[in-house]
């Protein structure tokens, strides 16, 4: 029975017959949601004296926090790094499609690209007249970064947490699939070079750079001061340089093992950060891993996981070919060849054979989670946390994302919690999984945004 406080109050939704990932464990508990917030049901009962308006039986499934993918270059034919007139709808398409992979938030990633891909140069009429000298491109300027604003998720698609800029400030030797022509350094003007390349950083969430580049410390400090996560990757840094970068503020490693020096027992390189004792106290390093069965040998995956399980962040590093099937597709400024579950940098049209340089992954996030679980033999909780809690912690969002907690001041009356003195609550973004961790349904803000095609329960 409801107390008589008005039919305008949002309905209370109770997800029953499920196990929730909460407090690092899978608990046999119901999940209570109202108006896009997770509720404390005990408080609802004793203080508001309310019961659920609707109960949804989850058929014994697991309710995990929605997956967060901090490295996606595109998918479903969309290439985020390709400058087009309407980048927004490309991002929206991917955002909608990845709901079926259990991803509720992501960071569209731009690989090394010419400056006009990042931002619109201020156009004076004389510039328009003379054309752009930096890129040598045509009069029409395209730009990408301003067209990818931070956006909440919903039925339209997964939320955009901000853009991940992977390059162009990376190592030539470890550029991988990134085009050599557009690599840059910031030795001349440090942070000003960064701004000149990227333009305004409003929509930027993560920047991957190579810390061995001159003046990287200034850049790392400046980016960190602006709340941007700095990640080390595509680099030939040794451990000492990497540690100094972390001391300057870097908190992430971009796809561990890939595009960096291999582990050596006398200089572990960036990989050594996992067990370094030189990190600032109370902090540990997070590291992305592509768990698609190709980019990292399962034994290497296990070594990293066992060395530092709390820092492991599953990423897809998905390329536009994700979800498309075999064939040739565009990534950044280059062509890639897809065959089965792998994608390689394609040679130019003059050569008949492809290279053996991996070019991003096409394994969806839920496939990565399942593969990670199977390869490491870790607990289901750990596998799920690697795709949800850890990326949320990396981005400092764990009070709202990556968990299914209710704070001490869970909202009363369906209205937002008071601004001051209240504890935040998790957003009810979650994925319904069966025991083999296949996605059955995806919810954002407590609203069903995707479910598997079959007879509805």
């Amino acid at each position, binding site marked *: 029975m409801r107390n008589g406080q008005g039919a305008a109050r949002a309905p209370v939704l109770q997800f029953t017959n499920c196990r929730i990932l909460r407090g690092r464990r899978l608990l046999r508990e119901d999940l209570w949601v109202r108006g896009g917030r997770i509720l404390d049901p*005990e408080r609802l*009962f004793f203080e508001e*004296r309310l019961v659920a308006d609707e109960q949804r039986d989850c058929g014994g499934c697991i309710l995990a926090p929605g997956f967060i993918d901090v490295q996606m270059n595109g998918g479903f034919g969309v290439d985020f790094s390709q400058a087009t007139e309407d980048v927004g709808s490309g991002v929206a398409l991917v955002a909608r499609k990845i709901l079926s992979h259990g991803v509720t938030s992501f960071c569209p990633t731009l690989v090394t690209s010419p400056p006009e891909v990042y931002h619109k140069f201020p156009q004076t009429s004389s510039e328009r007249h003379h054309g752009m000298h930096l890129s040598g491109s045509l009069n029409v300027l395209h730009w990408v970064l301003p067209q990818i604003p931070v956006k909440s998720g919903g039925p339209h698609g997964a939320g955009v947490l901000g853009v991940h800029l992977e390059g162009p400030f990376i190592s030539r030797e470890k550029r991988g699939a990134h085009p050599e022509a557009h690599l840059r350094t910031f030795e001349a003007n440090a942070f000003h070079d960064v701004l000149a390349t990227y333009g305004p950083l409003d929509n930027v969430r993560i920047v991957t750079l190579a810390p061995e580049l001159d003046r990287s410390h200034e850049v790392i400090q400046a980016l960190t001061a602006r709340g941007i996560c700095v990640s080390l990757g595509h680099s030939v840094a040794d451990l000492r340089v990497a540690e100094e970068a972390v001391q300057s503020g870097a908190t992430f490693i971009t796809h561990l093992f890939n595009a960096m020096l291999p582990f050596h027992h006398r200089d572990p390189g960036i990989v050594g950060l996992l067990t370094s004792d030189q990190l600032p106290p109370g902090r540990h390093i997070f590291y992305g891993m592509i768990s698609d069965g190709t980019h990292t040998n399962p034994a290497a995956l296990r070594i990293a996981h066992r060395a530092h399980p709390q820092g492991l962040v599953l990423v897809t590093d998905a390329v536009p070919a994700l979800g498309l099937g075999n064939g040739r597709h565009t990534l950044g400024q280059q062509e890639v060849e897809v065959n089965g579950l792998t994608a390689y940098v394609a040679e130019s049209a003059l050569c008949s054979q492809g290279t053996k340089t991996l070019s991003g992954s096409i394994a969806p996030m839920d496939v990565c989670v399942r593969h990670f679980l199977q390869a490491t033999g870790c607990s289901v909780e750990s596998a799920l946390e690697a795709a949800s809690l850890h990326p949320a912690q990396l981005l400092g969002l764990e009070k709202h994302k990556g968990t299914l907690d209710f704070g001490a001041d869970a909202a009363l009356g369906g209205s937002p919690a008071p601004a001051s003195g209240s504890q935040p609550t998790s957003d009810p973004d979650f994925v319904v999984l069966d025991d083999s961790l296949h996605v059955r349904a995806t919810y954002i803000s407590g609203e069903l945004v995707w479910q598997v095609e079959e007879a509805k329960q």
Partner: protein
Amino acid sequence: MRLVILDNYDLASEWAAKYICNRIIQFKPGQDRYFTLGLPTGSTPLGCYKKLIEYHKNGDISFKYVKTFNMDEYVGLPRNHPESYHSYMWNNFFKHIDIDPNNAHILDGNAADLQAECDAFEKKIKEAGGIDLFVGGIGPDGHIAFNEPGSSLVSRTRLKTLAMDTILANAKYFDGDLSKVPTMALTVGVGTVMDAREVMILITGAHKAFALYKAIEEGVNHMWTVSAFQQHPRTIFVCDEDATLELRVKTVKYFKGLMHVHNKLVDPLYSMKEGK
């Protein structure tokens, strides 16, 4: 009194749960006719609550027209503390059943005016028409609710300071740290429970045996407050074998011999399902 003796804890819990079910269903509760139930906390009734939940999930009983009044609550413990009796009742009972939250009454140990809270509780019981069945337990010191030794046998709902026996018994819920156990509680009085039309006391385990002996084989005494129910017209003590260890063989044999009569109270087990 009826002394119902079952072989073990599980059977005793089940018997008690069945009895409660039958009482509620036979009462035929409805929109204008609520069944009022007094409820305990602690480890003893856990098995009984589990069975009640099971019967509810099977569709055999609904708590839609049941009002509950808990016996007690700690003073000064935040309502959402995992050891508060609010948390206990939510986790072990309320969250699994269909009771209307407005009908689940528990004393508020954080009320600004504790005595006023107690008086209001008495008033709510009165307004609900009194308690039909008060289910309770017994402490190792023979107390009912938190009516510690020395409590008046006609006492009403009030603030009580806990006896050392009780604090020791409760320490296990507070990491074994005596300093963390609350020292005061609000509790229904002996008189409050005596006012109920029927009382059922659950007593299981050898550690309760001496208290049971004092409660039913010795005189009415305010040092063993459960003994007051010797003067209640309709009290049932539900025990397991271990709880009878301090009783006279004669007492135990007599009541065991009556089990065929006692079992008629739970067999047949009624159900709210259609056609049963």
